[in-house]
């Protein structure tokens, strides 16, 4: 119903058929210019995209088939080919390298599902609460966006201080003041590190969900709520029957973006734990970094990166396929 307000494919509209200029055509140069101009305008962006993303990606794929260690790193062009060895090692889940990769992959999956879920839940709840005007709404809105506006490094390092065992604020509150734990807990090492990572990730991520959902809410006509209220629908029913369905297209994009960001998040665990993350919080991004930069095995690290890329492409593809199919049937 309201899906049309979401410019799902902006390009389609701009270059759509039947533009007024079509009638003027006839001579070749003019036509060429007309067809060529959009592409000419796109060219700088395309070139940059090629340079910044595609070229490194291709080189990365080439590297994943090579043996790149401290012995061969300097002249990587002549490094020996290993065929699919790097992939075999990465995917051999009975051997240490593959086993560790699988472990970090599973940790990342659980972490991503929880983090995205919580970010979405908190963001949506906050946005709905903020929908109606009240005193101090503007201030509160601005405050909510603080985590999103802060530089990641500064924010995460502050969290790292707060999670410290001896002098951290978290233990001070949980143990000293509230007495919720029977002794100060470790948050940056051991099993709790997963919780610490999740807390920081959600704290960092939910304002984005809040922002997007808030924008989505602006597009829902107030009349729908008024009509529903006349029909006797309570707040919860209004949320369930009007707000959430109307937000569907927004949520589709939001969840996908959050998923990709969270799955690939490197900064949070790196700043929180350093280059050797605790086992419980060994995210796949850190794991690949370690394989490449700390263990100096760039070939295997590249293979892992490519595998990760394939996985993310697959998930994104399936997700887009499913959600767009759902949208089409909803539109009919």
């Amino acid at each position, binding site marked *: 119903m309201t899906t049309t307000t979401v410019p799902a494919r902006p390009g389609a509209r701009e270059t759509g058929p039947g533009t007024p200029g079509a009638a003027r055509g006839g001579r070749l140069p003019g036509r060429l210019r007309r067809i060529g101009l959009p592409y000419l305008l796109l060219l700088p962006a395309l070139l940059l995209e090629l340079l*910044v993303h595609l*070229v*490194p*990606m291709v*080189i*990365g794929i080439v*590297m994943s088939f090579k043996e790149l*260690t*401290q*012995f061969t*790193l*300097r002249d*990587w*062009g002549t490094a020996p080919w290993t065929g699919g060895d790097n992939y075999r090692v990465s995917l051999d889940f009975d*051997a*240490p*390298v593959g086993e*560790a990769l699988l472990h970090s992959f599973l940790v990342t999956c659980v972490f991503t599902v929880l983090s995205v879920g919580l970010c979405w839940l908190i963001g949506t709840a906050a946005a709905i609460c903020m929908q109606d005007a009240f005193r101090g709404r503007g201030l509160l809105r601005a405050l909510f966006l603080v985590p999103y506006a802060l530089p*990641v*490094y500064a924010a995460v390092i502050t969290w790292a201080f707060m999670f*410290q*065992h*001896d002098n951290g604020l978290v233990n001070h509150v949980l143990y000293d003041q509230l007495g919720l734990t029977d002794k*100060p807990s*470790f948050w*940056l*090492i*051991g*099993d709790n590190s997963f919780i610490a990572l999740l807390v920081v990730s959600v704290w960092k991520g939910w304002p984005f969900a809040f922002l997007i959902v808030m924008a989505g809410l602006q597009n829902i006509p107030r009349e729908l709520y008024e009509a529903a209220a006349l029909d006797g629908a309570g707040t919860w029913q209004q949320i369930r029957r009007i707000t959430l369905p109307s937000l569907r297209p927004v949520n589709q994009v939001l969840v996908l973006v959050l998923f990709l960001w969270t799955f*690939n*998040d*490197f*900064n949070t665990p*790196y*700043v929180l734990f*350093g*280059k*050797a993350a*605790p*086992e419980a919080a060994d995210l796949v*991004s850190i794991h*690949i*970094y*370690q394989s*490449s*930069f*700390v*263990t*100096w*095995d*760039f070939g295997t*690290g*590249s293979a892992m*990166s490519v595998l*990760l890329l394939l996985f993310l492409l697959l998930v994104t593809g399936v997700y887009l396929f499913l959600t767009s199919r759902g949208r089409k049937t909803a539109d009919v």
Partner: protein
Amino acid sequence: MRSIRAAAVGAVTLSLALAASACGGGSATGGGAGDSPKTLTYWASNQGAGVEVDKKVLQPELDKFEKETGIKVKLEVVPWPDLLNRILTATTSGQGPDVLNIGNTWSASLQATGALLPWDEKNFDAIGGRDRFVESALGSTGVAGEDPAAVPLYSMAYALYYNKKMFADAGIGEPPATWDELVEAGRKISKDGGKWGLGAEGSNLSNNIHQVFVLGKQHGADFFTADGKADFTSDGAVAAVKQYVDLMAEDEIVAPGNAEYAQNQSLSDFANGKTAMVLWQTASATFKSLGMTDDEWGVAPAPVPSGTPGTGKATNSMVAGINMAVFKNTRNLDGATAFVKFMTSDAEQKILNQAYGSIPPVKAAQADPAFGSPSTAVLRETLATSAAALPQVPDESQFETAVGTAVKELFADAAAGRAVTTESVRARLAKAQQQMPAK
């Protein structure tokens, strides 16, 4: 073409880590090899209390060098956590500095890349000859039997630093010379609530390695076989790691909170009177910056089972220090060599090592009375008689990560109150060994 390829490699190494920008390895093209014979780029490691301190120490010396030779040195002080990444990126892209500092334990690993200038007889002669340097410092400049990849610049050794007042309060007369004495002294102090015997940096991988390497020597174990293969699970290695972690787990003289320390917090605990001892390398300058006066702390050789430090099982320190290396593809080889000669000259060695509280690896400078004070004498003696270089193998960097992480996880177990047994230690070390490259 060459620079495009270099840029592409720089870009890909970074993009591979997905978001490695946070690791600080960013500026592959940062320094840029000196194009003109009248300039040099120098990456100095962060030795002082901060990057600014280093600049203050080094700049006057660089000015002196410029006056003597007419060569201008562009200085960049690189913080420790970034240094290895920066060197690796520079190695891949070929866009590095002319002269740089490396941690001496990385010598063999970086030597394997082939990016550093080998110090053969001819190159050594250009800086006054190999004989000018102390033998133990030369031991950590590359794989034995090959031309060194670097020359020693600052030497350091581990020693036992103790708080005099806390020792007196607990009725301890002499600093401990054996591990039994250390544990005993530590227990006397740890009884007192809130005070602890010994400080540790459980989450600092390199520090973990330094400590367990020395303990390994004392148990007759190396972490590598003679032909350079990883050997982490020998009885001696397991015993060494267990003994170190047991200082927290069983002896309870290390505060559990130290398990997550990695930013030298144990030194501030020491300066604040929370812990009575630390095993550290050249800590005097840091104590001063933390507000401790020199007469508040004492220094003694790190403990050995026999009580008398020496070689083999009486080893009580690793050979710590900084080496100076030249990038092979420098366009100003003569200038770079002249700069190394300048920095390792007797006069500069005295100035620089005094400023940093380290020991000169150059014999003539080391003999200077400036390094004869009680605190530096212990370090000098240790370096001369009872320190051993970490295994000079190309996989040293991976060893630090793998075994250092194993020790970190064991400390996490100990801190959480989980049992640390010979089996659990062996299992962690076996896992670390499996992570080493199979060559």
